[in-house]
């Protein structure tokens, strides 16, 4: 058979979804609007969850006690994207695992507010164990990105 250019079906999905989130998510996101980072505490293991959870994975219990943290945090680990990766939103180059207060879990968020010319410099400027503070957006809508990023406390 002669060489034949194989056809491809080229298309995109744009599938819409709607959900109503329950209390743990709703309180947390409402808190964001007011520049508050809330957490909740498991009644069995006493672990503090920031962000809060509808249930404690380990104990399978519903955290009942809520607290407002001061937002001060520690950088557990991070990754620096040295190039803008195709197919991903254009965002700050560093995302980190951020432990707020004495949370037993980490908060995935951006680490930014650091001056640089070249992304490669960031690898040296950011350190595991660094102290961080939250930086908020002016316009807040009850969204995870109401918190713009965490910035190293110098």
């Amino acid at each position: 058979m002669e060489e034949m250019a194989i056809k491809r079906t080229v298309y995109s999905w744009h599938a819409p979804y709607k959900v109503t989130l329950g209390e743990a998510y709703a309180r947390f996101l409402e808190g964001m609007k007011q520049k508050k980072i809330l957490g909740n505490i498991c009644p069995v293991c006493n672990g503090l969850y920031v962000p809060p959870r509808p249930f404690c994975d380990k104990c399978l219990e519903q955290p009942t006690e809520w607290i407002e943290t001061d937002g001060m945090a520690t950088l557990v680990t991070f990754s620096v994207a040295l190039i803008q990766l195709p197919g991903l939103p254009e965002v700050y180059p560093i995302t980190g695992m951020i432990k707020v207060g004495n949370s037993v879990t980490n908060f995935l968020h951006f680490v930014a507010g650091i001056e640089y010319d070249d992304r490669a410099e960031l690898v040296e400027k950011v350190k595991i164990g660094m102290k961080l503070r939250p930086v908020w957006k002016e316009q807040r809508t009850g969204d995870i990105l109401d918190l713009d990023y965490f910035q190293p406390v110098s």
Partner: protein
Amino acid sequence: MPRKVAVIGVGNTTYTSVRKENRERSEIASACIQSALDFVGRGLSLADIEAVYYATVDGFEGVQRPERSMDCFGQSAGTPVFTVNTGGTAGGSAIKDAYHIVAAGLYDIVLVYGCCTLIATVDAQQILNTATPPLIEKPFGIGAIHLGGYYLNRYQNEYGTTAEDFALVAAKSHKHAVHNRYAHNRRGYTVEQILESPVICHPIRLHEICPVSSGSCCLILASEEKARELSDTPVWIKAMGCISDTYMVGYRDFLGFPMLQKLAQKVYQEAGITKPLEEIDYAEVFNPFAGFEYLQYDALGFCEAGKGPKLVREGVTDLGGKLPVNLSGGTLCTNSGIAASVTRHAETCLQLMGRVEDQRQVKNARVGLSHSWGGPMGQFNTLAIFERD
């Protein structure tokens, strides 16, 4: 009493880049299944397969539940297809379930097919980003590579691992992939070439990242009675397990793979293994990023935490060493999505059967290990121990 279960057949197709892939997904699958049937021989045909496990992440395939429209699994005879989707571990999860269902006596001969998940993919990172929790973690645009960064950055910070250490373990995979006819990237990058490649996501370099491949892999599992009838080299599943972590990425501390460590304790106990480095003859671990192999050595008890680079420098995990690992080139050299998790098991079985290319065949391997890692941002691990007669 549960029955013994063996892997008796392995099927593979050629692997290429998804951009160069011309075959329709059912053509890839039918070729792959036919190669497994031929591998077993002895007149085994599609009609003898009593159930099929299709391992996928269907959202990535461009068709939801694509196996529905692939008439290559014996559906014309009503053969049941079980569609398993647990992310990158789907192959491992499916093998585990197939093992259970044969051990339980519900079927005698089953096929586990690891599909070429990324065949329709335009952009792998875009696809992988859809597996993060929307609304809570997805807006940060993290793909698998960032996750790799979290683990390897933390590992490096803890143990002072050098760029050369990471390149060394990558070069080990690349070196052997050259000889693997079923590897996608067979360029055989050296340590120098790897160190010259750019850092994409600190500390991961380009040649330490898996390609986006097309191609697929399948296994045929059989009950003891059928295995003895159909194979001279059955590879028995000694023990197999799966472990689940939390969903939100933030619930992991990224220092090593503690879940894999817990799973290994359980699976080793079941298989009667107390000294893995001494008792296991071959291992395939899931390394989409070369450095993961080090974290896996720690978790699987091959060495003390952080001592992986020493093992590699001493050649312990290379061909001729005490416990060769990833002589297929690993996921690092071929990552056809879900197929890669089946391949980890296929490669170990092939090594135990003595059926790989001479240049990378481990002599007299009797006990083997296979690992897969996946789920939303690495939520799941599976682990299997194989043994031949």
